[in-house]
C-alpha cells in the first residue's frame, strides 16, 4: 500500500523535500524527473541528507551529506564512502499528480 507524500509540483526537478512517513523522516529527490527517496539521516553523524548536494560519482547518482561529506547512492541508499554503511531507500511512484512512497 503506497502513501501520498507530496504533490508533483512541490518537488520540481533539482529540488529535494523532507517528508515524514510513519514517523520516519524521508528525503525526497527529483533529479531531472526521476524521483528517489532515502532515509533522511546520514549513517555517520545523522546529518540531514535532504540538505545534501546530488553528485554523479562514476555514473552513479549520489547525495553528499552536508555535514561530513558521506555519499549515498540515490537508487539504493548504499554508502559509497563506507561500504558497510547504508540508509533506507524507498520505492517511489508518481501518479495522478502525486508522489507516493511504498
Amino acid at each position: 500500500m503506497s502513501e501520498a507524500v507530496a504533490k508533483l509540483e512541490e518537488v520540481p526537478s533539482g529540488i529535494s523535500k523532507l517528508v515524514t512517513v510513519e514517523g520516519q523522516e524521508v528525503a525526497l529527490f527529483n533529479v531531472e524527473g526521476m524521483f528517489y527517496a532515502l532515509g533522511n539521516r546520514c549513517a555517520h553523524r545523522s546529518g540531514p541528507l535532504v540538505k545534501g548536494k546530488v553528485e554523479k560519482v562514476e555514473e552513479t547518482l549520489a547525495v553528499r551529506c552536508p555535514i561530513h561529506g558521506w555519499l549515498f547512492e540515490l537508487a539504493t541508499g548504499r554508502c559509497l564512502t563506507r561500504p558497510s554503511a547504508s540508509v533506507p531507500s524507498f520505492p517511489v511512484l508518481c501518479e495522478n499528480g502525486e508522489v507516493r512512497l511504498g
Partner: protein
Amino acid sequence: MDLEKVAGLIESEAQFFARAHSRWSLTKDHQDMELVAHAMRVILHMGRAVDSLPEYQALVEVQHADGGWGRESAEKESAAWVSAFCGLMLIRANAVLKDPEIEKSVWKAIEYFLNQQRENGRWVDSEWGDLDTTSHPVSFFNVVMALGTSKMKEAVRASWRRGLRFILDGQSADGGWYDPVFQPSGVETTAHLVQDSVVASLVLPDGLPVRPACEKGLNWILAHQDSDGSWDEKNEDHTMDCTRSALLISRMLRQEEKARLRIEKAMEWIVVNKNENGWPDFPGMETNLERTCDGLDLLLKYQAWRQADPQEVVWRWGYVPGEPTFLRGVTAGV
C-alpha cells in the same frame, strides 16, 4: 555583539545543556562518544571541570586497554578521531583536576596514538578523511606539548612534528585543505585543520614555521563566507567551525581587524538562526544536541575573545603552556 546578550544566551543554553544531562553523560548510560567529548568541552569552558569530576572519571572507565575509545561507549574497537577528542578533554581537564588516574589515562592515550601513526605521519579512521583524522591527534599532542609533563613532551615530540608536517604538506596553494572523498568543498576541513593542528605551533616550542600557512588558511576561510554571514549555504556546523577558527587564528596572528566584521556577522547569523533551546544543523530544523554543544562552546570562545587579555581566547584551545586560568569565568552550573 552585545556582551550582555551573549552572557544571557550562555546562561540559558547552559541550563538547557544541564537539563539534557542524561542524553550525554556516561554516568547515566552508554553514550555516543563524540557527543560525550563535545559535552566535556562545554564543561571545561564553563569552568565546571572540578564540579564534574565524575564525568571525567566515567570517561576514563570506558577507555580501552589499547588506550583508545570506541565511537560508542560500549563499542570494543578504538577509533582515532574520537579517541583524540577524548584524550584532549582529559589532559585539559587534568590541568586543574590533577587526578592520577586521569594522568594514567592520558598516558595510555598517548601510547595509542604513538602506536597508530602511519609512516608518512598521518593517522587513519575509516569514518573520516586522513587530513581531518590527523588533525585531532596533532591537536591532542599540541596540548601535550603545552600542558603535559616533560616526559610526555619528550615521548610525543617526533610524532607530533611528523603529523603536523603531513597536515602542512596537504595545504593547497590557495590556502584551503580539501578532501576529495569527504569534503571536496574544503570548508570544514580547512576550519578544523588550521585551528586544531597548525596554529598552535606559533606559541609552542619546537613547532614548525606555520605563520604563512595560518595566514593563507585564515584568508581562505574569510573569503568563503557567504554574504549572510554563514558558510556552506547556511550550514550551522560549518559556520561555527569557521567562526571559531577565525577567532583563534586572527588573534594569534594579530590580524583581528581583517576578521572582526566577518566574525561579528557570523555571530549575528548564529544567534538569529538558533532554536529557542539549542541549535539545529540548518535553520528551521530541530535541535541537535551536539550542535548545541558547538554553539555553546562558540559563545564561550567569543566571550573570551572579547576580553581585554589577548591570551584569554587562546586558553580555550589549551595551547598556552602553563596553568589554565579560564576557570575564573564561571557561569551556570551543570
